[in-house]
């Protein structure tokens, strides 16, 4: 029924530096369906940004496969000020991927900027407007699939909703598929059909947004949800341990209150629940 657009299998990416090697992504597998928004949530260092960059080939992966049926892939970045060349005019930025520069105006209007802005330079626009420029540039190649890497995190709150709404409208008009990366669970909840929770380079849990938010299975998901600030919300407290042993198995094991010795030794097998809800934990 659901058509798979991108199939990721056992994707691994290791970074080498002077201090040693770090596994940014550790053998992760998932499917991305056509027309959906898959939210990727997790804390810094969980590998979500590296995953996004791998999917648009900005980063090469060490092993595993990415099978894509998408006509084109694009990416929208977090920091609107760094994602445009400060010496280029807005029109030139948007036209960078176009054959005909005239189409830039159409794209600008599509993302809610006016024709008058085309000759401006980036420093004359606000963060919200620049993020629209970044979106217009991403749309210029008519992609099927867009990685949104924290597209609203650097914006002021009164611009956030506009960018979110714009992304939603564009998805409807163009039939786009999004991988929406964010550390802000409220934003992911709002925009995503499904959520993937990552920790330490591995997937902890993946499933429909409502299920993940309302009935999380993985201890880490519960912990993460308990930390989201939300007015008037009665939250379930979730205490974690403070241990810095290195785990060969589940990356969350050192802090997990339900851990067993097995968690440190063996990687968790995937457990399938109803509605495509997958969870990686030994103790459920």
């Amino acid at each position: 029924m659901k058509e798979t657009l991108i199939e990721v299998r056992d994707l691994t990416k290791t970074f080498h530096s002077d201090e040693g090697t770090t596994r940014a992504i550790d053998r992760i597998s998932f499917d991305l369906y056509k027309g959906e928004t898959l939210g990727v949530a997790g804390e810094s260092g969980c590998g979500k940004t590296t995953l996004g960059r791998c999917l648009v080939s900005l980063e090469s992966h060490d092993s595993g496969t990415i099978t894509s049926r998408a006509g084109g892939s694009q990416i929208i970045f977090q920091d609107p000020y760094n994602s445009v060349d400060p010496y280029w005019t807005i029109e030139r930025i948007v036209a960078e991927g176009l054959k005909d520069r005239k189409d830039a105006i159409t794209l600008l209007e599509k993302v809610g900027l006016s024709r008058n802005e085309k000759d401006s330079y980036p420093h004359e626009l606000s963060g919200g407007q620049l993020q629209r420029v970044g979106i217009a540039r991403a749309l210029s190649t008519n992609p099927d699939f867009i990685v949104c890497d924290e597209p609203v995190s650097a914006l002021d709150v009164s611009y956030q909703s506009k960018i979110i709404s714009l992304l939603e409208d564009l998805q409807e008009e163009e039939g786009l598929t999004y991988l929406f990366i964010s550390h802000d669970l409220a934003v992911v909840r709002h925009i995503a059909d499904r959520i993937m929770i990552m920790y330490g380079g591995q997937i902890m849990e993946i499933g429909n947004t409502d299920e993940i938010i309302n009935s999380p299975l993985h201890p880490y998901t519960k912990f993460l949800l308990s930390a989201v600030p939300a007015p008037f919300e009665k939250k379930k407290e979730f205490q974690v341990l403070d241990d810095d042993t290195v785990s060969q198995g589940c990356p969350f094991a050192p802090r997990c209150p339900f851990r067993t010795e097995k968690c440190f030794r063996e990687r968790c097998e995937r457990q399938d629940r109803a509605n495509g809800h997958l969870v990686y934990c030994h103790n459920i």
Partner: protein
Amino acid sequence: MNNILEIEKLNVVYRIPEGRRHVLRDVSLELKKGEIMAVVGESGCGKSTLVNTIISLLPSNAMIESGRIIIDGKDITNADSYELSSVRRNRLGVVFQDPFSALDPLYTIEKQFHETIRLTEKLSKAESHDKAAAMLRACGIKNAEEIMKKYPHELSGGLRQRVMIAMALINDPTLVIADEPTTALDVTIQKEILQLLRTLARERQLTVLFITHSQDIAFEIADRITVFYGGRIVEQGTRDDLFSFPLHPYTQALLNTIPSIRYGKNERKLMPIEGEIFSFLNETEGCSFAPRCPYARESCFNKAPAVREYNGHKCACEMEEKW
């Protein structure tokens, strides 16, 4: 006279080549002892300038045009540098957004505590060591002895912020200013830091001015909340009042514009605030929010909005029919 911080009609201007621009206009607020007040606002709303004014660290092209700031009964507006440093030493504790740049990378944590303690008390190395260790433990650091031997770069972000809080509290300040202390942190660590601040505030009767850009964080931490927009206070009230009955159009719009963990896809339409954020380069005599306000009338653009108060809930808006 149990107000720890009193700000009266404060106006701060920046001198720029184009002339003088107001960054803070008629800002008045007071904090009672033991109260946590959150200041919420977007970039350019003046919240950082407010902090810099209180700790007297305004940039050289900025000046206080009028108004008074009274900390614990002491007027610091016209104080000389000797008095100022005495106020800073004895009455103020500041927690910055980025603990890494606020701590000196060349000294161990212990050494930095020692230097801080010595500003107010003549204690021996051993005594100040014990005092610092006790404070670190109070801030939830179990292996305090070990941490004190380390350098700032050896600590994780959350730990650094705890050290920063401990250092801000070490001299028993009467007023603690926390300037976006959790913005650089992950959400789970943010929660720990917020809980820590609340616990410490309750136990030690701390008075905290908490600056943040997020109304959700403000709700988690504060007793009362002040909302800033374009250099003015637009609304001020208890946390429950403000979230249940927002009065100012800007506050109302803010609450409807951010995604919430409670509502999923298609369950709620976000209501964006039209227009661009106020920039103090385009100075106006009227209400800063008027250009974006759906209810704005002509008078809003050229007359400063009057502040009305209802049971301690203040709002600066000319829209009388809402009252």
